[in-house]
């Protein structure tokens, strides 16, 4: 079992594919030195970047290859950023192809309209489950058809595939390796019956198989984008205008020791940052540290638009608070009956809810801050553009990117080269978290590559990475609820945030950004008369997708409010939730019950000074319930002792990866809940490295137990759903511990972190 990165000459295969049409199942097969099978997959994660040049709509985007020498390869067109999707996809394929885990390789494909897809929305594996099963089965049946021809026996039942062999059952001394059949298989006709494996007989799906990317990650050989190294390359550092929205007044002179200075434009408009404005300058030197040093020291004259003064945390918060009261709210749920328009329904609905609400039992406003991503691997991109005279002839890019197709499209835009002259390699990503879907750092690197005309790696210093992020939006949410007889009779939920979608020009006026309200709509609870509204906030901060997106905001509010109401009613928080789930979503109930049972023994014998809290949330189709135990050894600190986590993600591909993603989501949420905040003063981000952006260290990590619900439902996402329940579970525990309700995150603002 090997993993190859940066080696996938799939361009010619893409060209071949373009001349074929999909058959009725959406498969393509063709002979390319053995059997190669391409298959149409859902093309995009939820957060596909709209980009020109490459249209992927009708093309297939993954393929498997069985070579005459017997090697079996899955070309991986996504991004492996630690979530295990590279392995998960291979696991599905190997299952139906009837090969062993050690008999399949995964190859990272170069960007290609056929194979590549944008990785986001916790969809990399779950959305491709059925298609990959079909593809594996189709390849297997084609190989069997070839064996049938070889044997001169047209009875399919006389053949069996296992361990990458086709065995002839009437005489088991007769068998063929897949490699022997590969070329002939390419000429076979796909049968109607793919004979999918009965899930009860899965050999590989559902097993904690070792991931294919791990060996290279313990010996230093795994190549992240930042590790691309080639003889003769030069190194660039980026220096943005420190003020968001500011631009270069003039390109500074090349400092002594530098090889070049390159003015760089912004790839896209994001808040105060305007597309194609010169908002940064790159310094090129003989090593990254020298480039960093020269960039830091270099005096640059910037032009600051007056509006950047308003890109300020205090001003934005004050404006947001006013808008929450007086801004135009759009109804997200419930949808209007047929006899109404959204506009005519809103006042009717509001009056109906207000009538039942009367004086709310609780009327609370919650707030969460902007958050940086801070992936461990800073943003970087390596570019090699070859010129003939003054014309570029080829462009090769190595990038830790969640969207290789967007990178290719941007390279075509900037270089004006045809797609066939552009090769984009997706490297391993040292964390993605949603940040590496963006194109700002790619766009800069291509410009530097065009200026220096030799291999160049552009790296963002950590301070640039924190200071020029596309941040998780700040949000304010006001919730009113009425209790009677221990049950919610009325629920009014109004949330305000900047729209990530609108900032990308993809939200039509008057529409609700569905991501702004995820976690606030489709709630499992009986809420009586209810109303969910969103108020769009206009502000200059660039905002972006941060692991679990809107659910990271709204689940904190909803599940905190459920806890406040349970306390007000004097009912146990599990019981209060059960009471509002009667007749509701069976998976939500089962997940909650499992967490109740899992945690019951320790909750019954909590040490003095300890408290627990629970929260339940759904994100990306996956239910997660977390139960947290905390204590407060001293004011200003908190000890998180344990987190019990129950997850229902439908059919499990790799339980080891599910567990890891829950552990990871919990840590990510702990960092945000306890300390996370991005602050801005007159347009300038003030927290620029880990020393004043505290995160949890190894010694502080609570004991995490993950229990996975058995399920035969379709698989759903695992990358993000571990995040949303943690903040409310912790806040709910804190309310029990201290009597103080946390309605504003983070719990400990302005936290700092010492050196090692």
């Amino acid at each position, binding site marked *: 079992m090997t993993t190859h990165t940066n080696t996938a000459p799939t361009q010619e295969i893409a060209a071949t594919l373009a001349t074929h049409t999909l058959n009725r199942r959406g498969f393509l097969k063709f002979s390319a030195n053995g059997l190669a099978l391409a298959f149409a997959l859902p093309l995009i994660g939820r957060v596909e970047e709209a980009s020109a040049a490459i249209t992927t709509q009708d093309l297939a985007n993954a393929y498997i290859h069985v070579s005459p020498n017997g090697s079996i390869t899955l070309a991986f067109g996504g991004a492996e950023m630690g979530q295990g999707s590279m392995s998960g996809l291979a696991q599905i394929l190997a299952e139906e192809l009837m090969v062993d885990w050690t008999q399949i390789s995964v190859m990272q494909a170069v960007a290609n309209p056929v194979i590549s897809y944008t990785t986001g929305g916790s969809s990399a594996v779950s959305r491709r489950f059925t298609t990959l099963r079909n593809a594996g089965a189709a390849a297997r049946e084609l190989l069997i058809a070839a064996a049938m021809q070889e044997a001169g026996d047209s009875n399919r039942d006389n053949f069996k595939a296992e361990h990458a062999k086709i065995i002839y059952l009437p005489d088991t001394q007769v068998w063929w390796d897949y490699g022997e059949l590969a070329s002939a298989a390419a000429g076979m006709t796909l049968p109607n019956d793919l004979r999918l494996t009965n899930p009860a007989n899965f050999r590989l799906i559902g097993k904690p198989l070792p991931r294919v*990317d791990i060996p290279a990650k313990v*010996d230093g050989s795994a190549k*992240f984008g930042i590790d691309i*190294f080639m003889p003769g390359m030069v190194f660039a550092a980026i220096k943005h205008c420190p003020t968001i929205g500011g631009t270069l007044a003039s390109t500074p002179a090349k400092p002594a020791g530098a090889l070049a200075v390159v003015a760089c434009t912004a790839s896209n408009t994001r808040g105060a940052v305007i597309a194609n404005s010169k908002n940064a300058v790159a310094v090129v030197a003989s090593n*990254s540290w020298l480039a960093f040093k020269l960039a830091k020291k270099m005096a640059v004259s910037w032009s600051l638009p007056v509006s950047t003064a308003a890109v300020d945390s205090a001003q934005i918060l004050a404006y947001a608070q006013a808008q929450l009261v007086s801004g135009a709210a759009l109804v997200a749920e419930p949808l209007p009956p047929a006899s109404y328009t959204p506009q005519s329904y809103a006042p009717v609905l509001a009056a109906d809810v207000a009538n039942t609400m009367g004086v709310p039992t609780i009327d609370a406003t919650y707030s969460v801050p902007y958050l940086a991503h801070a992936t*461990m691997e800073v943003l970087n991109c390596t570019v090699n553009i070859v010129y003939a005279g003054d014309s570029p002839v080829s462009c090769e890019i190595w990038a830790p990117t969640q969207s290789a197709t967007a990178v290719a499209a941007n390279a075509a835009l900037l270089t004006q080269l045809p797609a066939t002259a552009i090769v984009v390699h997706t490297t*391993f990503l040292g964390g993605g978290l949603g940040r590496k879907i963006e194109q700002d750092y790619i766009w800069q690197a291509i410009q530097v590559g065009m200026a220096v005309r030799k291999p160049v790696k552009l790296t963002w210093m950590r301070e640039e990475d924190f200071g020029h992020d596309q941040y998780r939006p700040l949000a304010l949410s006001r919730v009113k609820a009425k209790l009677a007889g221990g049950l919610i009779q009325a629920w009014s939920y109004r949330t305000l945030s900047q729209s990530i979608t609108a900032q990308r020009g993809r939200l039509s006026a008057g529409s609700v950004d569905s991501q702004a309200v995820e976690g606030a709509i489709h709630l499992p609870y009986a809420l009586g008369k209810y109303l969910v509204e969103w108020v769009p906030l206009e502000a200059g901060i660039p905002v972006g997708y941060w692991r679990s997106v809107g659910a990271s905001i709204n689940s904190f509010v909803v599940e905190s409010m459920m806890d406040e109401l349970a306390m007000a009613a004097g009912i146990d928080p599990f019981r209060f939730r059960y009471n509002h789930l009667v007749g509701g979503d069976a998976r939500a109930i089962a997940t909650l019950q499992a967490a109740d049972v899992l945690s019951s023994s320790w909750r019954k014998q909590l040490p003095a000074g300890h408290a627990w809290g629970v929260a339940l949330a759904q994100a990306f189709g996956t239910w997660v319930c977390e139960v947290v135990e905390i204590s407060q050894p001293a004011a200003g600190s908190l000890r998180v002792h344990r987190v019990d986590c129950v997850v229902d993600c439908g059919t499990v591909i790799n339980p080891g990866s599910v567990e890891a993603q829950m552990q990871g989501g919990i*840590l990510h949420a702990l960092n945000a809940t306890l300390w996370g905040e991005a602050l801005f003063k007159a347009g300038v981000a003030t927290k620029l490295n880990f*020393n004043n952006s505290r995160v949890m260290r*190894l010694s502080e990590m609570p004991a995490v137990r993950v229990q996975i619900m058995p399920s035969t439902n379709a698989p759903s996402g695992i990358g993000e759903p571990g995040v949303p329940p943690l903040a409310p579970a912790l806040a709910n525990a804190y309310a029990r511990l201290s009597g103080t309700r946390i309605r504003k995150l983070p719990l400990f603002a302005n936290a700092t972190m010492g050196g090692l």
Partner: protein
Amino acid sequence: MIALNVNGKNYNVDVDPATPLLWVLRDVLGLTGTKYGCGIEVCGACTVMIDGQREHSCVFDVSSATGKKVVTIEGLSVDRSHPAQQAWIKHQVPQCGYCQPGMIMACASAMQAGHYGKEILSEMNHICICGTYSRIKDAVGEL
């Protein structure tokens, strides 16, 4: 020229003596297993061993490494046979994997000093954003 011994090999490098060892390893020698995370010795991603001691190579002047033996993740073993590497594979520790070379080098340094289990953990209090801490504890628990 600055003389270096890295993973048992001798090198002469022509850089500013104040250049941090990290960037000589990565950008001059092409030993990219050692990672840049923060540049201010807070995160631990750049950890290497110098004469057996764990050091943060992001703030360690290359000139100070002359005459000393530098070991990076690439030099820990030739075949992932170091017990820490084996434990990391067994427990499927890495997610994105970016911080792991630093974690493993800190672990190996503590092991070389004769420490075990929790003693080792206390010397590798690095930053990981993926949440591999739980599995690191499991892996180190058996060392």
